[in-house]
């Protein structure tokens, strides 16, 4: 994939805080025009990656290119093309909603007041309300509005629906998808909600312990993973060409979530198609250093 086709490209990207790694040897390419889910447990490096992509912090090592340029505090034209929603959804609480929109308009040459007002009108958020008096869901929508009305080529959303009730969450994601479809922006969003990933994303990046453990199209991921089950206490090895991502044993038998590159025809195994959620969960479980003694590097290498 060349630079023009990717919106975000990281090569051996490192981010070191004082004693810990926020991100380590992260290599991934995120294609243009996709809605990409960045999935991982707390501390896996999702926010770190998004903040570096937004130019809020700089890598400790490796390279990061966003829309073909290196994001940094000095990259002015990149900030025009990238919208960033922080996980804390920071807003000026003493401002009225209309003043927040004015703030966005004054700071962004590509701003569309129509987009902003239409978005808020759909949600019945009054422009005269003080931001501090809005509910959490409404504040999240105002913060998202600031990103969308900027009409960026790339939207970086750090847990946009976190801490919202199901209705607010559904509203936010639905309107997000509608705006993205209208504008054609690329979206990278981090989330803990695997149901959101399956519903709205067409590309998934799984991070665990500061490493990328999976990165691909959702369709391709689903197509190349299977659940193999065998009844009884069998130690039957799966055929060659299969990578075991996760293995579970129970009183009834063994169950393996595997990655298969070729059609699988072994009648001794029962074969099921896993859901995207099951696959992502399997990678997240195996990405933990506390399980089975395998670390994320091994899983990542095994998956490729």
């Amino acid at each position: 994939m060349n630079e023009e086709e990717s919106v975000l490209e990281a090569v051996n990207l490192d981010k070191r805080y004082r004693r810990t790694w926020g991100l380590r040897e992260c290599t991934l390419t995120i294609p243009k025009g996709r809605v990409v889910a960045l999935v991982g447990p707390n501390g896996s490096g999702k926010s770190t990656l998004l903040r570096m992509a937004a130019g809020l912090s700089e890598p400790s090592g490796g390279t990061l290119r966003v829309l073909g340029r290196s994001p940094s505090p000095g990259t002015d034209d990149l900030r025009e093309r990238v919208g960033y929603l922080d996980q804390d959804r920071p807003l000026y609480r003493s401002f009225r909603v209309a003043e927040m929109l004015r703030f966005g308009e004054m700071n962004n040459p590509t701003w569309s007041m129509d987009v902003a007002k239409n978005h808020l009108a759909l949600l019945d958020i009054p422009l005269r309300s003080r931001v501090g008096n809005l509910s959490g869901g409404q504040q999240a929508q105002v913060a998202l509005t600031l990103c969308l009305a900027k009409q960026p080529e790339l939207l970086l959303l750090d847990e946009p629906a976190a801490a919202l009730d199901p209705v607010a969450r559904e509203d936010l994601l639905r309107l997000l998808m509608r705006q993205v479809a209208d504008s054609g922006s690329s979206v990278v969003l981090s989330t803990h909600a695997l149901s959101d990933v399956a519903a709205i994303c067409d590309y998934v990046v799984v991070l665990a312990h500061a490493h990328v453990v999976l990165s691909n199209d959702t369709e391709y991921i689903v197509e190349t993973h299977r659940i193999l089950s065998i009844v009884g206490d069998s130690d039957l090895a799966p055929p060659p060409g299969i990578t075991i991502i996760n293995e579970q044993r129970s009183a009834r038998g063994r169950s393996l979530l595997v990655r298969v590159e070729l059609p699988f025809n072994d009648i001794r195994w029962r074969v099921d198609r896993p859901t995207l959620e099951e696959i992502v969960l399997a990678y997240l479980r195996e990405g933990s250093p506390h399980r089975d003694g395998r670390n994320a590097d091994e899983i990542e290498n095994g998956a490729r």
Partner: protein
Amino acid sequence: MWFVWRQQRSIVIAFALLAVVVSVWALIMGLHEQTLWREYLAAPCKGEFGGLTPSDAKFCEGLQSTVSSSGKLNDVVVGIAVAFAPLFGLILGVNAVAQEIEQKTIRLAWTQSGSRARWLTNKYLASVVSLVVILAPLCWLFSWWVGASHDAARITQKVFVISGFVEVACGIFCFALAVVVGLLLRRPGWSLAVGVVLYAAIFLGFTTQVLPSLGSPSVAVMQSTQLGEGSSSGFYSSGGAPADSWPLSTGYEPKTERGVPSTSVINQGTNNMSRCAISETPPLSESHCAQHLGLIAVQLYIPGDQFWTLQSFEGGFYLIAAALLAALSLLVVRRVEQ
């Protein structure tokens, strides 16, 4: 600029209201004290240097008592006036950066299309305008009050900083100081505390150690002088320095000394006087020793006409320091990680 004004509006309005309250108070006090002093310095009292009849003496004593009792209130006015501009600058500076970092709104601001340098420059411009608009008239009023209250000559350390334009420069300096400290510490409370301590140290250091050496001192022979319009505080000025000057020190110099004596000459003369006084039993009187040693009591002072020169030095110092801090903050802001 609109955004910065909107963000700082409540602080600016609060300080503007406070400035109005303090101004009205200072104006009322100043007019009252001005009237009292005019009465006290005019006939029949003439600062109690006139030929007083018993009834006049009682009236003048009462007047003196009233004038004297306003001294404590004067100290309060001076305290408020000295603290107003630095506090205004520091609070604006902390709000401009440390508060944004702590509330994480800086992540919103720094991911808009404008650069961080532009963001910070706007903060400086809007804040400096707010500071100047509020502090300049306040400084003018305090300058008038210093003269009206006769609390101290305007060039003396006590009121020098609130007479003239130094307070405006202090406010701007404190804003820049709080911005830099805020960028480094990232916590509003700590930034304000450290800013207050740093400013207090710089202010005291400059006022007590640097400023006296920037003036060209003169020397006067010690004598009792009559109180007059524009005098420094107190009812009997016993020094030889003019009433509108800044007395630096008193001591003794040889009668043969010409020009302004150095500190070491005055110290040596004063030491000789001390030794002389205790060398004899019973101790010799001061005047006897001075005559015996050929010394004369003198007072070093900075003349009042150097007021604007010293204002330029101190104001310039704070403005140049503010400019350097602003340049530093523009460098630092590019490196701040979020």
